């Protein structure tokens, strides 16, 4: 039985009398410790899907099962790293993570253990040097690292990444991808990541879930990425398996499900 199961999920948005089907009959099973990416053109409902798994949106039909139990409201067992970091600007880096730690481990860790755990997670993303800075004083990549530390600090069963590197420049993005790979190597956590970057998907994932175009999107194809870990960015650039996977995703996105620009 799968660790995380999206079971025949459909989502319809109603606006007045008009209803729009965003997701139709989407089923996906994710194993423990697996890194799964969801890729698709914008507007294909991938963020909707992630929000449903996070519990931030209710499904119209179907449901999400985590360890065989249905989850339908948000919780720290499915921590989210949001696209635009969502750090609280009036708290320092440390306080932003501490808020999560204090809430999740209120009864299971002592005060000093919570302090150590907060610092440990900031260490993990290499942000302990800026722990007393406010979000406005650090760069976009650093904010995203803190967002990642906050999510990791909740010890989630599933880590949900909502296009976490979308707003970053290419170099910063590469650094963060390496960090996420290293952390995944250490913690062996289960990750579900939304992305629109083909290279990112192939580099990081064990499996790539490709979505058809919306409205009424669903899973078009699932591609396993049989690359051994740890993966090295430079070595992969010439690896035939890497190039083949990349080719498959590109074909899916740009030949079979070309994005029709409505604008």
């Amino acid at each position, binding site marked *: 039985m799968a660790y995380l199961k999206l079971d025949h999920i459909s989502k319809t948005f109603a606006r007045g009398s008009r209803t729009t089907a965003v997701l139709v009959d989407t089923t996906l099973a994710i194993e423990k410790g697996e890194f799964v990416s969801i890729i698709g053109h914008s507007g294909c409902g991938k963020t909707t899907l992630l929000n449903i798994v*996070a519990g*931030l949106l209710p499904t119209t039909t179907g449901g999400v099962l985590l360890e065989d139990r249905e989850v339908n409201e948000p*919780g720290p067992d499915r921590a989210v790293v949001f696209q635009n970091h*969502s750090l*609280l600007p009036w708290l320092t880096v440390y306080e932003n993570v501490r*808020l999560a730690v204090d*809430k*999740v481990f209120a009864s299971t860790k002592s005060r000093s253990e919570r302090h150590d755990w907060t610092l440990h997670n900031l260490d993990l993303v290499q942000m302990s040097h800026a722990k007393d800075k*406010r979000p406005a004083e650090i760069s976009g990549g650093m904010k995203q690292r803190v967002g990642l530390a906050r999510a990791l600090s909740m010890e989630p069963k599933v880590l949900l990444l909502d296009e976490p590197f979308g707003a970053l420049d290419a170099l910063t993005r590469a650094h963060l991808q390496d960090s996420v790979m290293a952390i995944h190597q250490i913690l062996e956590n289960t990750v579900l990541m939304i992305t629109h970057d083909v290279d990112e998907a192939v580099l990081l994932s064990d499996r790539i879930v490709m979505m058809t175009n919306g409205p009424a999107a669903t899973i078009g194809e699932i591609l396993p990425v049989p690359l051994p870990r740890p993966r090295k960015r430079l070595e992969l650039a010439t690896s035939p398996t890497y190039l083949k996977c990349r080719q498959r995703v590109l074909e899916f996105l740009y030949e079979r499900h070309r994005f029709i620009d409505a604008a």
Partner: protein
Amino acid sequence: MNVPAAKVDARPFVPPTGQAAAAKVLPLPAPRFDLRSRITSGLVAVSVRAVPPVLVIAVLLAVWQLLCSNAGATLPPPTKVVRDAWELISHPFFDNGGLDKGLFWHITASLQRVAVGYVLASIVGVALGTLVGQSIWAMRGLDPIFQVLRTVPPLAWLPLSLAAFRNGQPSAIFVIFITAIWPIIINTAVGVRNIPQDYRNVAAVLRLNHLEFFLKIMLPAAAPYIFTGLRIGIGLSWLAIVAAEMLIGGVGIGFFIWDAWNSSHISEIIVALVYVGLVGFLLDRIVAGVASIVTRGTAAN
């Protein structure tokens, strides 16, 4: 358009020889604390701010003096104001009992009423604003009522509150309360409604309860809006108290002005107006100062 080439250093580049490798580190001269230049730059900064208003005031006083110096003038010129009201200006702290007190005591009495009414308005205003901002049904139910009530002039409430409380003091406080509360409610509601969905999502993932959400997300996120309301509120309170005190009597700057009018002491009225203006300005600066300290980290990033 032809841009003339900038003069560049045309000397040929000489690669550094071996001598350059043994570069000597020269210690930078320690920054000397130069008291004189500090004082000079401080004085310049102060005078840039202070000279223009002082000049304008001097010009206005001169015009006033010219306009009111001829025989038929109804208002006294500034020199006469100072001469007539010198007792009042030089002794703000005297207290001969009853209503015969220095301006300091009148101002204090007015400030006390404002303080009580304003603090009550702040607490109730933030609470109601939070409710209206958070709940769509509370907004639909209450917002139309607020929009009508807030247009009622403060003094129109006074007869009603006198009838209800049968006492001047609580009536004046009620007028302050009802004057200050509307901008606080409305701005708090806007602030709460504008809390980014991201923060609400964070709170949802962390499963913050209602109290934690209120204290840790809502108050800090809405603080800039709340303080805008508080700042408008304190200004309106001070506007209302003078008018209310004119009607209810007793110790207070409003009644002092009314009393001076009844005794035809025009100079005393002018002195009192200066005091009212300065205190109102100070109140506004205090609330603005508290706001800038409290909301320091709240600016969007």
